[in-house]
């Protein structure tokens, strides 16, 4: 991606490690919210989608109840379905492998795969390596966070909140060289930020999908002419 010959392996490992570090704060927050160690691990192993997991424990912590926690994590997970639709034709997997790939279909694995366009084999390699790296680091560090708990303090003191934004920016960076996608990204970031002030967590990212639909319709109309 950014550096010329940076290999897919290095990129996947870096993304896995950077994302995994966020797992520490998830583990700590989850235990603080009142989940026990194994419930926390079940979320990281089975749900395995950072946004949905933070939403689940966030709702529990704020006293919103289990049903509300289930619904918000479900809603936040929709975007993985869109990623899977992008990935399916690229991956072209046998039926038996689809359930495995599905579990690893998250923001990071899709984003690294996207950053390797148009090379299909590098896109596949990026998906698997990143998915596995994030899974391993995310779960190991969730366990550390759950065990260490409150000793870590606020993850934003370590700048981890800024690191997450920078990481996603880096992953879409190669796409931004196309001016149409750059405009789409700026409009989407602005829309999501504005929406985040007025709608519940999880909804803004989903609603930005409509920005993409708008761009898509304009593209179709133009191609017809």
């Amino acid at each position, binding site marked *: 991606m950014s550096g010329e010959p940076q290999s897919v392996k290095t990129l996947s490992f870096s993304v896995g490690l950077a994302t995994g570090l966020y797992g520490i704060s998830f583990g700590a927050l989850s235990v603080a919210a009142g989940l026990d160690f194994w419930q926390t691990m079940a979320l990281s192993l089975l749900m395995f989608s950072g946004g949905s997991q933070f939403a689940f424990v966030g709702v529990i912590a704020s006293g919103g109840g289990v049903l509300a926690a289930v619904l918000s994590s479900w809603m936040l997970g929709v975007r993985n379905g869109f990623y899977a639709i992008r990935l399916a034709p690229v991956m072209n997997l046998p039926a038996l492998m689809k359930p495995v790939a599905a579990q690893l279909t998250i923001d990071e694995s899709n984003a690294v795969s996207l950053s390797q366009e148009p090379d299909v084999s590098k896109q596949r390699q990026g998906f698997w390596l990143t998915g596995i790296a994030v899974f391993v680091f995310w779960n190991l560090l969730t366990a550390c966070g759950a065990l260490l708990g409150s000793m870590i303090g606020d993850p934003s003191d370590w700048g981890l909140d800024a*690191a997450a934004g920078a990481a996603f920016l880096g992953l879409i960076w190669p796409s931004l060289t196309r001016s149409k996608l750059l405009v789409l990204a700026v409009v989407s970031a602005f829309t999501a930020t504005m929406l985040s002030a007025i709608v519940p967590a999880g909804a803004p990212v989903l609603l930005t999908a409509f920005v993409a639909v708008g761009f898509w319709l304009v593209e179709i109309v133009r191609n017809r002419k």
Partner: protein
Amino acid sequence: MSLWAGVLIASGLVYSWKLFGHLVPERFVTSPAVRSLAALVTVSMLAGLVGIQTFSSPEGIVFDARVPALAVAAILFYLRVPFIVVVIAAAAIASLLKLFI
């Protein structure tokens, strides 16, 4: 609903989205229009995440240490600095700014 039931049901529901996307019939997803939409939606949602992770907080939209950190990250990506170096630099800048401001 018990907490354990909630953890397991929510995990199943989140997985169902992931699996659904992989099982949509190939005939449907190989149409150029659908592939183009899925690619646009991906860029759009990831860009949305960048915005939210940089500006949003429980108190609303804020301009804090994350904003200069992201600006520096953008410059470093432009200069083709390797990914992991940029991410670490962004975290370092944000945590230092929080210390001094």
